[in-house]
């Protein structure tokens, strides 16, 4: 039995690879944490960088990794790039972020309303959940939805300015671009990330 979509993905939705590539190009110094699955592929497809931390598991944890990082690096812009399914699993972390409100943290949810990695089953965000309303309800006042490429510079500006915690839902097409697999070696991506920040090993 299927229920009626209350906010179905429209044809005007943006191409995920194009959006992520444009966004990352516009924020070259940002530290980026990506959620498992397609967002990690999208980030890697935009060009591997030391300032990327790709998650391959820990579903629901991307926003919390981003929060710890943002608190530790207040002078850097921190971006969490994740999908609707991953964010839904850690939905309470938006409340935790809403309570701390680090000005340098931006959560970007690439929302196709589906679990892409597992065969495109529909997620809550195409079955009634309004993620922007949820984020606002959790206290992240600067939360908005974008549905076209023209909005990409707006998001980039929010990331660069570090003026307030930002939550962005990006309506993306529910297609599946070719997989672009970032390194799966967790210690390697951790160590080069820290080294790029000038941090020493213990």
């Amino acid at each position, binding site marked *: 039995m299927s229920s009626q979509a209350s906010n179905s993905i429209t044809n005007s939705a943006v191409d995920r690879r194009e959006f992520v590539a444009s966004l990352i190009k516009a924020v070259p110094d940002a530290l980026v944490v990506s959620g498992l699955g397609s967002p990690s592929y999208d980030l890697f497809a935009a060009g591997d960088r030391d300032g990327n931390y790709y998650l391959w598991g820990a579903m629901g*944890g991307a926003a919390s990794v981003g929060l*710890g990082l943002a608190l530790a690096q207040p002078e850097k812009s921190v971006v969490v790039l994740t999908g609707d399914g991953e964010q839904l699993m850690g939905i309470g972390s938006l409340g935790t972020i809403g309570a701390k409100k680090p000005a340098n943290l931006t959560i970007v949810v690439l929302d196709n309303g589906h679990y892409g990695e597992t065969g495109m089953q529909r997620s809550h965000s195409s079955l009634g959940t309004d993620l922007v309303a949820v984020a606002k309800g959790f206290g992240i006042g600067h939360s908005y939805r974008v549905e076209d490429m023209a909005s990409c510079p707006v998001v980039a500006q929010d990331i660069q300015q570090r003026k307030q915690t930002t939550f962005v839902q990006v309506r993306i097409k529910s297609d599946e671009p070719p997989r672009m697999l970032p390194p799966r070696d967790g210690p390697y991506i951790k160590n080069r*990330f820290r080294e790029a920040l000038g941090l020493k090993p213990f």
Partner: protein
Amino acid sequence: MTNAPEWQYAVFNVLKKGGVRQVAYVPDAGHSHVIRSANADPDIHDVVLTTEEEGVALCCGAWLGGQRAVLLMQSSGVGNCVNMFSLLRSGDFPFLTVVTMRGEYAEFNPWQGPMGRATQAALELMGIHVLRVSRPEEVEEVLSAGLDAAFEAGDKVAVLLGQNLIGRKKWERK
């Protein structure tokens, strides 16, 4: 503000002296002094969580950014963390959690039993080294040993504060 037992002061002092800059927690009475002290300390971010696994991920993010973080929780919270603990091994992050135990000593609430008794095994199954404290005078030494193992050697460590240390919960509000 109530007077906390001495060992709770020891917990905060060890964390503070050990350079911990982020204290993430789901509240517990046994952690109340540490939470108050973290909140009052301008050099420490206190982060209240909606569920404990957020704290596992937060500690990893803090380390990526060069800060030491600790997760305070009750034994029931360990069960909430199990899959997120895989991040500690997959990413090889240092990790320190301080866990107040329930369900093991003079427990009034039988619902605390199942997770409380599985807490140590659940941690160890996920590759976390467990240190246990049962006496107040051991708190400082054992916690500082755990902190050093985590942040000087990259270990993943849970320090369990036994329910016999915490004492009997008062159930009647008077």
